[in-house]
């Protein structure tokens, strides 16, 4: 039998791709951000590696907001949320399922953002691709842990996109700083002497918010 969080993830992914739109909106928003920020330097000048990494994680963060709003609004109609709440499983499985689905969708969006950074921002000195992937996965874990916890918060709210952005972005600062710093190193900038410290910050962030989410998610999702 499929473990229930994986079943929930599969259900959400099927729903997201059912109408053919999939993750078009988050990807488009991210690409627009990359393109607009490419205008921040004079023609012929390269964008610095740190700026490129910041733009990448900014695009990812905005995509994450849209992804989790989509995932949590899928139970908005027909009282489907009650069905999930009544399912014979711990309520935390919903958080895990949504986080996994969000992680998959975010990775798909990043598969588009990464080449866009290379092309639009002139970052063609990417080193150590496996390390880049590891760094992205590590930071994504933190993003989806917070996104899945607080995504439930704005469910049913008319201005949920803006509300979620205002609340989530400041919380994500440590993990975003780490992502930008590590990304900057892998794009060929800096000595990487703080790399270990940044990995420590991300691991601490991920552990803290995963633990907090497992404890606190029932309070948010179980409430009407």
């Amino acid at each position, binding site marked *: 039998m499929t473990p229930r969080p994986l079943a929930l993830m599969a259900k959400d992914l099927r729903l997201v791709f059912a109408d053919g739109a999939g993750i078009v909106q988050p990807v488009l928003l991210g690409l627009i951000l990359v393109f607009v920020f490419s205008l921040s330097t004079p023609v012929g000048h390269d964008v610095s590696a740190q700026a490129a990494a910041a733009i990448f994680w900014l695009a990812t963060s905005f995509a994450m907001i849209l992804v989790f709003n989509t995932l949590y609004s899928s139970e908005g109609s027909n009282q489907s949320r009650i069905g999930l709440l009544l399912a014979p499983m711990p309520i935390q499985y919903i958080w895990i399922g949504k986080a996994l689905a969000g992680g998959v969708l975010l990775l798909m969006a990043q598969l588009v953002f990464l080449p866009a950074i290379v092309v639009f921002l002139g970052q063609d000195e990417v080193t150590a691709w496996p390390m880049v992937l590891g760094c992205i996965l590590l930071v994504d874990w933190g993003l989806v842990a917070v996104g899945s916890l607080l995504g439930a*918060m704005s469910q049913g709210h008319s201005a949920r996109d803006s509300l979620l952005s205002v609340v989530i972005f400041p919380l994500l600062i440590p993990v975003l700083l780490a992502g930008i710093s590590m990304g900057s190193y892998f794009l060929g900038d800096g000595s990487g002497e703080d790399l270990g410290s940044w990995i420590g910050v991300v691991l601490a962030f991920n552990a803290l918010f995963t633990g907090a989410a497992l404890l606190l998610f029932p309070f948010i999702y179980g409430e009407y």
Partner: protein
Amino acid sequence: MKDNSSLTSLAGPLALAGGAAMVLAQYFIWVYAPVEVTMGQVQKIFYLHLPVAWWGMICFFIVFCASIGFLIRKSPGMDQLASSAAEVGLLYTTLALATGSLWARISWNTWWTWDPRLSTALIMWFIYAGYLVLRQSIEGRRKMRMVAAVLGVVAFLNVPLVFMSARIWRSIHPAVFASEGGGLEPEMLTTVIVCVAAMGLVTAALILLRFRQKNLQERLWSLYASDSRFNG
């Protein structure tokens, strides 16, 4: 609804004591403490900056504790305490950022710098401003309280990480109490202690006054909701 009158009745005496202590603090700031050689009178900003920064952070800690209390006991009083402390904390952090920026301009020749304490204060300002916006935005008081309590907990848990991440960037903030004597003249240290104590009394009074207002608002709302004439 639980009556919190014994607690809120302390607000008046605390406000009076806080006012008197603030007057005393002015004496210490302008008469007792020596004028700093390099910065001159501008250094006096420090006696406002440090107390509001510290008490702002303590207010956010109160939000954290009250939020946990609300999640455990589901008591509206805990929620009211959390939101009162968040408002006062946000006000103090705004003052700390403004005074810190003035200090930075004179001392470091820049309005802003990526310093761990400055950055942490600014990020906390954003988080708690979002917290207060969230409280206004969510429909349904029960849900709003629950969501605000969860945010009140995770926001404070984030503080050490925000500080650590900002610290990996270079810091130029003075380490006021890092060494023995704190790098301050004894008169300055005494003045700082007096100012922190005075601000503590004002903080307690402000939180309790706001708490009382919210408590009364809740009672009025309950009366309004239970009156059959208004329920049609």
